[in-house]
């Protein structure tokens, strides 16, 4: 006899299992770290083994890779793209620059901590992280998904005002439509 709660849990488990093994990565090379994405996806490292593949538009994507520093101009596009993605959605911060600004910490045009603007589920450090590190980051994300811990998108929904405030500090001309959150 399966309790209703258990069946829910089983359903959740299956869902998470599928989500974890099928990660569509949005093809968006936001920063210089994008140079390690082709090797990760191609023959030697072959991320497709893990069910990781590219998605062309945000509507189809699950994972947003922020490959390195974000210029303020890009941040605006990243927010738009992130908000166009469908739940559940995950963000991987790629490289030291996403953590604390990295070597561009004093630049006038790059933000310093990515997770103040959009929620980040996994950070991969390094400048730049090797494909192995990228894959291990993905594996970490998969673990979090299975455990139900990768809930950045929920955090974003709940704390939208706070995020918006931070975002609007940088994006002076806020001309964005309201998205589905």
């Amino acid at each position: 006899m399966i309790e209703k709660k258990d069946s829910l849990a089983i359903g959740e488990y299956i869902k998470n299992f599928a989500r974890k093994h099928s990660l569509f990565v949005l093809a968006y090379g936001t920063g210089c770290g994008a140079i390690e994405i082709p090797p990760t996806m191609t023959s030697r490292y072959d991320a497709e083994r893990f069910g990781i593949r590219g998605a062309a538009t945000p509507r189809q994507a699950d994972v947003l890779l922020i490959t390195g520093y974000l210029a303020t101009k890009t941040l605006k596009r990243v927010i738009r793209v992130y908000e166009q993605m469908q739940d559940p959605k995950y963000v991987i911060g790629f490289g030291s620059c996403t953590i604390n600004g990295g070597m561009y910490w004093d630049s006038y045009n790059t933000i310093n901590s990515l997770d103040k603007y959009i929620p980040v589920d996994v950070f991969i450090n390094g400048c730049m992280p090797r494909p192995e590190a990228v894959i291990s980051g993905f594996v970490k994300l998969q673990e979090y998904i299975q455990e139900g811990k990768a809930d950045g998108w929920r955090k974003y929904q709940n704390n939208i005002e706070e995020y918006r405030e931070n975002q609007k500090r940088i994006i002076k001309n806020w001309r964005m439509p309201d998205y589905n959150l």
Partner: protein
Amino acid sequence: MREKTTTLYLGPQHPGITGNMMVKLQVAGDTIAKATTEVGYLHRGFEKLMERRNWLQSFTIVCRICVPEPDPNEENFSRAVEEIEGRIIPERAKWLRVLTLELGRIASYLLWYGGQNGSAGLYTVGQWSVGDRNYILDLFEELTGGRVYHMYIWPGGVRRDMPEGFRDKVLSTMDYLEKRLDDYDKLMFDNAIFQKRAQGVGIINKEKAIEWGVVGPPLRACGIASDVRKDDPYEIYDQLDFEIGLEHGSDVWARALVRRKEIRESIKIVRQVMDKIPEGEFYNKIPNPMKWKIPAGEAYVKTESARGEFGYYVVSDGTDKPRRVHVKGPAYVHGVTLLEDMLVGANLADVSFIMNSLGTCPPEIER
């Protein structure tokens, strides 16, 4: 008033764009009526940052300017510093520099194979070539310690000598690559569909190419033998025996042929370097980098990168920090005005194809 032509945003988030830039297309049918490029998505203010860092600290960030091929940046910066200061570097360092530059060129061309074919839908070649590029990156890793950013060429020479057994590894990698290049040729250059797609597409008029300052493979594909390695030889290029690719078609196909030839020539150069490299010091010591002051002066140095002439204009005012560093990447010429002009009248299906054939690399446009 609403425009009649459709606005199509190609980028910044788009699988067809190289790097992070935007080409806004006005499309009538599948013909492009107007193209506007927009850059700045990758602007980090390198030049400003360098003004805050001393000479050696600046050297660690110049390689980040162009990601696919960082070595010409290091080479340029080091050479500019050396030229202003009048520093002489040991002979072996020059050869090692050429080695890294040529390996970087091969790696960059291998990445281009991926981009060019990917934009035409032939992903297999891209998968192979980007995979094979890892072998070059392995060599770099062994030589310099870095996979993507090497920080190897620095003022005074290079940072490390070749490790033991490196020569054999380089040579065997080159042998392997040469074999693989034949495979790519079979799939790409002998492919009738690829020829159909590439021939007669994206033509740059020869006069215009000179007028507009086109550099690198696109210029050589117009039948103009222009290569910094030949015209203004730096390091030891005048002692090497190599040819430059020269084609007359001025289209995507000609550019592809130029690159096909040059990647083979680069392999030849690497072999020559391995044969002829002299023994000796690889590094002339620089003073305490924290207190290292360069005399006032200025220099414009240029290096032939995989995409063309890569120039650095460096001004020193006699302090320990650069007064001004201004970078001119080849994409600076190709990526904005030329691209905008070339895309007008082109077919929508060829946009990404043409961009890849020019080798547009946004980070060097905006830095």
